[in-house]
């Protein structure tokens, strides 16, 4: 085993470089509506659409993306879209009253 210890440092630095690249790419993909939207910031597998504000364009964009990629089924997508439209209308009415 000892004769392979010379590999520890190169392996460490290769891992270091790969991790740094992964981190940079992940940060690039972050958008504001991602906060609370998924169970993990970096793993967008399980969508949690109820946890985020319903009325910004980032939300709409990611909703469509999630539907396209299959993370949301059509029923859930329909429901969320309806909520989004309602929230947007409510917001617009409130702003008009102001």
């Amino acid at each position, binding site marked *: 085993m000892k004769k392979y210890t010379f590999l520890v440092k190169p392996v460490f630095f290769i891992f*270091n470089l790969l991790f*740094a690249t992964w*981190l*940079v790419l992940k*940060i*690039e993909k972050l958008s504001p509506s991602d906060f609370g939207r998924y169970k993990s910031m970096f793993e967008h597998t399980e969508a949690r659409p109820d946890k985020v504000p319903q009325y910004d364009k980032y939300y709409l964009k990611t909703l469509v993306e999630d539907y396209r990629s299959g993370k949301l089924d059509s029923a859930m997508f329909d429901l969320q879209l309806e909520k989004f439209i309602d929230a947007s209308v409510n917001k617009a009415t409130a702003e008009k009253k102001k």
Partner: protein
Amino acid sequence: MKQFYFSKFDDRKPYKSIPENKYRTLLFQFTGILTIALGLSYIHWRWAHSLNPDALWFAIPLVVAETLSFLSTILIVINFWSYKDAQKTTPVHYLSEIEDLQERADRPVKIDVFIATYNEDVELVRLSIIDAKKMKYPYPDVPIKVYVLDDGRRDGRDPNKQNMKEVAQEEGVGYLIREHNEGYKAGNLRNGLMHTDGDLFVILDADTRPLPDFLINTSGYFRNKKMAWVQTPQWFYDTTEPETLSSVIKSKFKLKNRFITKPLDVVLGKIEVNEDVFGNDPRLFYDVILRKRNNYNAAFCCGAGSFHRREAVMTLALKDFAEGIKRKHKLLASQRQGGVVDIKSKRTLLLDQKIIPFKFHASEDIYTSIMLHADRENQWESLQHPDIECKMLSTQDLDSWIKQHQRYAEGSLDIAFKDNPIFKKGLTFWQKVCYFNTIWSYFAPLWILIFLLSPIIFFFTLQLPVQAYSFDFFKYFLPFQIMNTITITLGCWGIATKRGDQYYISSFWFMLLSLISVIRGKKVQFNVTPKDRANAKNTQHIMPHMILIGLSLLGITYNLILLSLGHHPTPSGFAANAFWTIFNIIDLSIMIRAANWKSED
């Protein structure tokens, strides 16, 4: 014995060097790479997506400043990469241990100690002589000779000057002078070397007091026959002591009423201020920056507290001597008919050419280091010794501080413009990177000035240098900044960097003046740093700082008014710039404190 302001600090104990820790080093390297990756991503985003097209006149200088500053970050990560301390060994005894004798007879090594002085108080120099004589060595047959190299020619000929020669005689040490000051300190050292024959020699300034084990702890390094010099940390044992904020307020406003002083003590009694008010503590430089350059064989000599092999500097001097004659001979031959130079001219040529061990330059120490490192034939090595082996005095007023630091800056920049180490043949790639790092740090005022002006420009123009302080801005900026802070903390582990950071920013004006002076081709002056206290106010030096702070405060007030009236176009921009400017004010204020600082005694 004469009492000085620093006499009360005589009992101060030196700090211990940071112990090497391989896990911390690995962690630093890990975060260092992350910082560079995140920094590259941030800088790419800044150039590609963030510039405000409506204010390019403001956006481009700022992004250029950020890019140049990021280059410094990369250089710092490289510099701090790893420790490589040399193995400590027992002191050397015989010449054969440090040199190849080549049929010469062996003998105990000879060690000389040079104390270079010019105009310092002779009683101050006496302290250095006494401590130099106290240096221990385990072999009684190794001759250790102390010499005072007095460039002030204070040998009693001028009744208006103190008599340095008399002090040297009283202390029983050698006294060497010359009749001119050519080459300043380098010339003084040359004179010392020409009149002595030590195989190894120590350089001390007039105020440098070696500790008893200096030679014992450092001479062993010369067993490595390539070791040209060993630099020990310069420890300033007279830096200002911390005071509690409550005592500062009480003395400033002459508060005596205990109904006021008591609550003050309770609330502010534990907050300490004014520790090392001049930012003189060089621990970060010696214990981290220079020590980690051992990794690249690029630790340079800093003059006082260094230990040298005579052979190294003399070999370099002889090489320069021969090259100088060759160059002049060629020039002379080209001017003569038929290219023949007569004997008389050749003799004059030989007599005119000087042997110069230390380069005649305001930064003779770093310049000579570059030349020695570049000597591929001999492949000289250098070492930054981690432990403190001598103590010395720091500048005690802002005026002296500025002069000293401007000399360092101008000296290094002068080398950069006239004999840039990047293009120096013989230096390794990493040595070039390290010397470039030193020189690059003196260009910092260019981007610091932009960083200081940017929030002020925003306050009065209400134009943002970025499209918006949006989510995108913070998602690139914050990870980079946070990781950068973690990396620097790991790199400087165990050392307080707050004061150094403040001086890095607040010295921008003086460093800018130095840069301009060198660009304009002004000759670099060799100013001897005063070793006493001058309690004069230095308001003229801090006018730029006061103007910048004043404009920042005015800008914040103006923006607050706009905000309260509901007319501010970018409240998020105001918040970001206000936050930024508060940091600037804190950094700049240290110079104002230093200018107004007065010692109690």
